[in-house]
């Protein structure tokens, strides 16, 4: 359980909470040895917004963040912070805060010295910097660890100190480069929620890189799904989950099963069932089915039959993969009390919920 946030009047960081800074990336192109990893990426982030860059490894999300931070130069394009072009400004003068994937605390400095490092570089006096550093540590519930060295902290605590260190200078934008990926599952969820809570309190514009769709869906105002150096779709978590723009977005956000269907305007026929479409389409389409849209059915209620290939217990639910007679792999989300075995013959059907579909390529 994390400590409650200190009251605003007690904490300089909270007292100075602002409106955030607008961030714009315009036509960012980046290549390494002739291999283009970013193909003219455009991204507008509103002041105070929490935007996640989501995508598989190698899609360019970390490179885009590093270009925004100034740790990598771009071949072309512009980075704007608060309406000002900072493309040619070095990292140390961009006024950003960043938390890295690997533990980046300075091993030779105590927690409070680590946290005060950025303030000291800005000419803040030692005593004032230490006081503000303690305020920032209070924000992440670690003020009692101020005199420890980084190796005396757990991984989660180290990342919280890194967060405090990034926030204490009140940067224009907070950049998070997969800061949770080295942590165990329980700490990851705790810190994820803590980051979001603090971001909302401070109102700081935040860009969060992750390959974990659940993480992105949980904390973001908007998510930019990237693939092969491009932003495939950007929208709220609900928009991305409910109406994926491309097959790769559907596949990456929320465990979609893709099956064939025939659309007729506002509805689509799948396995002999007619179900509504989120957006109108006609002709042969790929239909993206969420696990919660598919149910087990018996006898005449079953739209299609198949064979169980795997079944995974997830605590409050179970997910079972069924291979249909047409060879499609469909994931069914159901109560944990139903325990299908490998090879079981089962029937499945669709709920009459609107689904996403794209014209078949």
């Amino acid at each position, binding site marked *: 359980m994390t400590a409650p946030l200190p009251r605003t009047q007690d904490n300089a960081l909270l007292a100075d909470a602002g409106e955030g800074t607008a961030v714009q990336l315009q036509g960012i192109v980046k290549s390494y040895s002739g291999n283009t990893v970013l193909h003219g990426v455009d991204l507008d982030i509103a002041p105070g917004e929490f935007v996640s860059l989501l995508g598989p490894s190698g899609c360019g999300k970390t490179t885009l963040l590093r270009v925004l*931070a100034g*740790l990598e130069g771009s071949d072309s394009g512009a980075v704007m912070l608060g309406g000002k072009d900072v493309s040619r400004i*070095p*990292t*140390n*003068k961009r*006024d*950003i*805060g*960043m938390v*890295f994937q*690997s533990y*980046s*605390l*300075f*091993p*030779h400095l105590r927690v409070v010295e680590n946290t005060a*490092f*950025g303030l000291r*570089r*800005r000419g803040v006096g030692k005593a004032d910097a230490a006081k503000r550093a303690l305020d920032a540590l209070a924000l992440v519930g670690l003020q009692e660890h101020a005199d420890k*060295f980084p*190796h005396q902290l757990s991984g989660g605590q180290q990342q919280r100190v*890194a967060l405090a*260190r*990034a926030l204490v*200078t009140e940067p224009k934008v907070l*950049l998070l480069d997969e800061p949770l990926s080295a942590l165990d599952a329980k700490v990851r969820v705790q810190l994820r929620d803590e980051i979001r809570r603090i971001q909302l309190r401070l109102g700081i514009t935040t860009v969060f890189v992750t390959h974990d769709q659940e993480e992105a869906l949980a904390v973001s105002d908007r998510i930019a799904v990237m693939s092969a150096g491009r932003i495939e779709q950007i929208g709220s978590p609900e928009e991305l989950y409910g109406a994926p723009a491309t097959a790769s977005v559907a596949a990456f956000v929320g465990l979609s099963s893709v099956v064939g269907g025939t659309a007729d305007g506002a509805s689509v026929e799948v396995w002999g069932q007619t179900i509504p479409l989120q957006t109108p389409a006609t002709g042969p389409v790929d239909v993206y089915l969420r696990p919660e849209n598919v149910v087990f059915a018996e006898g005449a209620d079953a739209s299609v039959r198949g064979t169980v290939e795997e079944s995974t217990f997830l605590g409050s639910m179970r997910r079972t993969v069924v291979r249909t007679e047409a060879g499609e792999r469909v994931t069914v989300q159901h109560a944990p009390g139903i325990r299908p075995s490998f090879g079981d013959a089962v029937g499945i059907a669709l709920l009459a919920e609107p689904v996403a579909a794209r014209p078949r390529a």
Partner: protein
Amino acid sequence: MNSLAPSRLTRWIIGILVGAFFAIPLIATFLYTLRDPKGGMSLVNWHKLIDPAFASTLQPIWTGLGNSLVLAVVTVVIVLVLLAPTMILVHLRFPKLRPVFEFLALLPISIPAIVLVVGLSPIYLQIARTLGTGTWTLAFAYGITVLPFAYRAIQASIDAADLRTLSEAARTLGAGWPTVVIKVLAPNLRQGLLAASLISVAVVLGEFTIASLLNRQVFQTAMVVVRNQDPYLPAIFTLLALLLVFVLLLIIGRAARGHRKARS
């Protein structure tokens, strides 16, 4: 218990043999310094160090030792100010250059000092014209001879630390490159930098060939001069030089241990 580990007896035998390998020459040298020219054993040779009658005999050694200490300081400065930042730069910004840099840094170990001097002679003519013939200018040559040893010591520390993340974290916090190197990277390379400095001091204090062939008076060349007048004094100074290096080693070991303790 690991059955592949040597037995206690084997470990003792190996320890005694290795210890004897190092200790016997030192003990023999020490006993030699105790030999009284009039017969028997006494401290008469050690007394010469403070005997005014031997002041002129010892003068070349004091001059040579002073020159060597100045050279050691300048060489350590070259290692810390030139070599270490270059290695950091290669590691962070030009990693593809590392094999080339490593080859160049290790090259001096394979070149005999006499060959090095042949190459350095014309360069030292130019150095003498621009900077004079002061003994301290030998530090440029010593900077090259210590390269292989200093390189390995520093590289081991660089490989053990995540310099990229540390430097990027410092830069995002507003630190310029000089601050990054001095305040963040150097403290995390302290063990390697200390080891490189010690090795440099040891190499400089023990170097004879280059200084002799370039006609500079350093500790080792002075001992040859003094040996012709008194064979016991160079043996005494050899032991003292070894003691000095041993003390330096202890100080560095203690500093490194203190650093490790702070981190663990």
